[in-house]
């Protein structure tokens, strides 16, 4: 049995699951906006604007979710400044949660600048987009690294969660922008690029998911459970494979569920499964099982 089974669950549940999903989506969306800002065309501008707004509101919602999840929400600023030694900064480069708090704050700053304050297409806007895009990708992926840098079952038993969450963040972001695009005047070519990108990222995500499960070794048997069923049916089947099939063979007409919605639901379920599968493993039962 893995040594990770002798630890206690940190009670990271629905607010954190929501944060992981929203943060991934916001970071991924801003990154895509930044890529288009640098390498896109004039008719990509509606998607760029939408991407920055998704980044902005995602950062705001992420901050609120993280704060509400704290045992003492009014002390949220203790993550950023030394409470007993103001105005000294509180920062640990080796602690993903510390690094992530700063990254989210700076990412939010870039998103505000890009979405509200800077003139479009200027050199400064491009510079901010470059910094914000990197921070956005960091926000999308560090949550998985944060889970790996613990001692909990599943999370600490594989180093692939960060890469997996990053791919999921990028795919949900492309799906979300693809859904919002038509209502915000996105060009057909922009939407096609988003759709193609999403399909390719879904393939990467599927490969990473397989590598992640394989990297668990004998611990992979934890997936012989309701969480494993949800991972297989909800995340892989509904959230990855079905959208890929629909991408390869687009349905005629507009009937049926939009594959982008399935990608979003799959991305959310991925966080649900990864968080709750580990949260649900009881220290007591593991120990008792060994004793008997």
């Amino acid at each position, binding site marked *: 049995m893995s*040594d*990770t089974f*002798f*630890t*206690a*669950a*940190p009670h*990271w549940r629905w607010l954190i699951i929501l944060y992981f999903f929203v943060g991934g989506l916001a970071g991924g969306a801003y990154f895509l906006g930044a*890529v*288009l*800002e640098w*390498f896109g*065309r*004039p008719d*990509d501008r509606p998607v760029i604007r939408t991407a920055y707004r998704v980044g902005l509101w995602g950062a705001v919602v992420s901050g609120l979710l993280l704060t509400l*999840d*704290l*045992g*003492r*929400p009014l*002390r*949220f600023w*203790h*993550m950023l400044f030394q*409470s007993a030694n103001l105005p000294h900064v*509180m920062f*640990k480069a*080796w*602690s*993903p*949660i*510390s690094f992530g708090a700063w990254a989210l704050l700076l990412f939010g700053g870039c998103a505000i600048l890009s979405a509200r304050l800077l003139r*479009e297409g*200027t*050199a400064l806007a491009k510079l901010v987009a470059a910094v914000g895009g990197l921070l956005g*990708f960091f926000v999308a*992926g*560090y949550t998985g*690294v*944060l889970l*790996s*840098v*613990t*001692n909990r079952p599943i*999370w*600490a038993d594989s*180093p*692939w969660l*960060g890469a997996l969450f*990053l791919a999921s963040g990028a795919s949900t972001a492309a799906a979300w922008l693809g859904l919002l695009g038509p209502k915000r005047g996105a060009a057909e070519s922009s939407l096609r*690029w988003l759709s*193609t*990108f999403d399909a*390719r990222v879904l393939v*990467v995500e599927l490969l*990473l998911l397989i590598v992640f499960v394989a990297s668990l070794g004998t611990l992979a048997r934890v997936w012989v459970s309701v969480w494993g069923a949800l991972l297989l049916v909800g995340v892989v089947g509904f959230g990855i494979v079905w959208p890929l099939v629909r991408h390869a063979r687009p349905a005629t007409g507009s009937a049926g569920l939009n594959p982008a919605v399935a990608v979003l639901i799959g991305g959310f379920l991925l966080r649900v499964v990864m968080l709750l599968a580990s949260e649900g493993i009881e*220290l*007591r039962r593991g120990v*008792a099982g060994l*004793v008997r």
Partner: protein
Amino acid sequence: MPEPMGFFTDTTICIGCKACEVACKNWNQLPAENGGVTEMSGDSYDNTRRLDGTHWRHVKFIEQFKGPYDGRWLMMSDVCKHCVQAGCLEVCPTGAIIRTEFDTVVIQSDVCNGCRACIAACPFGVIDMNPVAGTAQKCTLCYDRMGVGLEPACAKACPTDSIQFGTVVELRGRAQKRVQQLKTQGVDAWLYGDDPNGPLGGLNSFYLLVDKPEVYGLPAHPQLPSRNLKRSGTFSTASAAVLGLLALVGLRKRRMDTIEGGSPPAAPGQN
């Protein structure tokens, strides 16, 4: 500078009286749960079951029975190990967790904001939330008592000296002698966490055991959470590079298609 202080817990003389649990809760004014209503575990004589934010000491009852007359009880008073390399201290993003002048690890409740990173980082499952304080809490090795020359409340209350308090160096010597004594009596005893070159740089609270660590609910090879940081960060960075490349390849393909179909439009900044 004071010497590193700690506990040596000899599990072979623990009688499971739970005086240490009571003394700890009493001295540290830890609240009751469920309004003080006792909740029976239902499958053990131990109703505390685990360490958490309101139980900083816990006497484990390990019931090894094959039949009614064939078995034994193992008792172990568990507590924070005050690791020399502490995972909780490593990840704490607020600086609430500190190493004291006694080489112990303490959570400052007025700094902690209840993010719970330390709970997931501890390899022993020691830390949990105190629902009244809204912060993560654990044993402080009675930092307030040590400061005025008193021994921790649990060690003071222990009627069999199963919990011994002192300097870590002195305790290690005492523990080695006890292991030798037990071995001459035919008991297969050994020390868990006493080696300063072992996992986590040694534990300032270490144990004498007579079975495998897993039997006592202890990990065989406790590790720091940061062991995964480099690999996980590298894989994520590589993944980010691949995704970025996919985005650029898609844009290039679009540009090529446009060139084949007609003249390419200007870049966004040029409109």
